[in-house]
């Protein structure tokens, strides 16, 4: 069952990523991105990370990608240009990097496997994650810094958007 789910979600993620990178139409690319993010959310689920799976769908699929689409509709008039020929030189670099990542993964596996652990039964993670966030010895400081970052971004985004408006007017 887990194998089947892995294959399903993995192909969703790969197909989505492929279409995202190569589809000439930018809106189709955005929807391929949705599929890919969905696939990754499903993979989180197969790894027992139920909270993160839902967060991924909520924030990435329901939030970030909608924002991206919004920006596409506001800014892009013609179909996006794709210049595979011009960037054919990059193909070997990309291929090498892919091969490097896969082999690194392979090399890392025995180290982690030796340390133990396995795909176990799913147990609720929400409470554990929450406790880690609020634990002063664990992630409390990063959590607070993250809150400040979000505030800064909120103010910054509004300021930038406003300034653009004044220039246009």
């Amino acid at each position, binding site marked *: 069952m887990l194998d089947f789910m892995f294959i399903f979600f993995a192909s969703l993620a790969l197909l989505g990523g492929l279409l995202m990178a190569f589809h000439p139409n930018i809106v189709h*690319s955005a929807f391929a991105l949705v599929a890919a993010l969905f696939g990754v959310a499903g*993979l989180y689920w197969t790894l027992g990370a139920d909270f993160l799976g839902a967060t*991924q769908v909520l924030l*990435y699929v329901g939030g970030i990608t909608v924002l*991206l689409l919004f920006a596409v509709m506001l800014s892009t008039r013609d179909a996006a240009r794709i210049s595979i020929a011009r960037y054919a030189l990059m193909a070997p670099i990309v291929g090498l990097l892919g091969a490097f990542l896969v082999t690194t993964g392979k090399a890392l596996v025995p180290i*982690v496997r030796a340390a133990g652990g396995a795909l176990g039964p799913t147990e609720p993670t929400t409470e554990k994650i929450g406790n880690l966030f609020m634990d002063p010895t664990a992630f409390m400081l990063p959590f607070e810094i*993250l809150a400040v970052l979000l505030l800064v971004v909120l103010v910054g985004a509004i300021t930038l958007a406003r300034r653009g408006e004044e220039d246009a007017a």
Partner: protein
Amino acid sequence: MIQLEHYLYLSGLVFTLGLCGVMMRRNVILVLMGVEIMLNAANLALIAFNKYMLPIDGIVEPKGQVFVFFTIAVAAAEVAVALVIAVALFRRLDTVNVDDVANLRW
């Protein structure tokens, strides 16, 4: 049987696809999408490693998942600012093509 290595291979492949998006597409928003895919690939590897972590006193703390949570939150913040910049760019220069924005000043 699906094991850790399968998740890592997948993560590597998805990362490469995201890189393709970043390098080959010239639309600012599509470059952003590529970056998001790459972040997701890294997140996937983090969670897979977390699942195979050595238990300390019999418990595996979901620390890898906490990292991923931070990544997602920061990515959301990043996208908000980047999109504002993209829209401002479009208003000012009437383009969202990264090659057209090569000037250092105007």
